[in-house]
């Protein structure tokens, strides 16, 4: 059965609400800068993924017969 600690749940809710308030207080410029950072991070992740797949393919080509 699911046991819920009401005090801790309320604390979690307050933490989430606090973050949400901060995010909403951001200016448009700040939010656009966040989007640019998300895009930069996505490009880095895509590049890392591409390289990992390439390395995996190379290892598989060079593997024992």
């Amino acid at each position, binding site marked *: 059965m699911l046991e819920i600690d009401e005090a801790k749940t309320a604390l979690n809710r307050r933490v989430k609400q606090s973050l949400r308030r901060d*995010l*909403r207080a*951001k200016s*448009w*410029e700040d*939010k*656009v800068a*966040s*989007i*640019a950072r*998300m*895009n*930069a991070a*996505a490009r880095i992740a895509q590049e890392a993924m591409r390289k990992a797949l390439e390395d995996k393919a190379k290892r598989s080509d060079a593997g024992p017969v």
Partner: protein
Amino acid sequence: MQAALRALNQLVTDGVVGDYAIGGAIGASFYIDALQTEDIDAFVILPVAVSGLVSLTPIYQALLAQGGVEEREYIRFGEWPVQILTDANNLIAEAIREAQKVEFEHIPTRVFRAEHLCAVALQTGRPKDTLRVTMFLEQGRVDVEALHMVAGRYGLTAQLMQALRRTGGGDAGD
């Protein structure tokens, strides 16, 4: 993004477009939390061509002349690809006409009003558009009465009621 906005403003000054406004995720981010997107959606009012042909060529040429770089269906300014979209229906035309004047890093620009961003998203109806409308409603960043009026004018009331039910704000009773 400043270079892109300066170039778009220049299009209006030079009469290449009647006017423009920012929509899509960048426009929505003026009101709600930042949304992941790759590009700037610039909706333009095209001047009426003598030939009657609709073409983006003069816009692309003008943007390239201002330092933009052509890249597939975008013109890139710095890290921001700009996608030029036309006033393809009367909802978008109204959204451009009634866009609000704002500033980005002291550069004047125009952004769709919240009710128009939601109405366009309701009309488009992809999962990411549905999420966007939900965010506007949940964050209380759209005047629901104004949205009802826009939705009513463009046959989007059913989609709006569905969105309101999802966020618990509907009054349809089912």
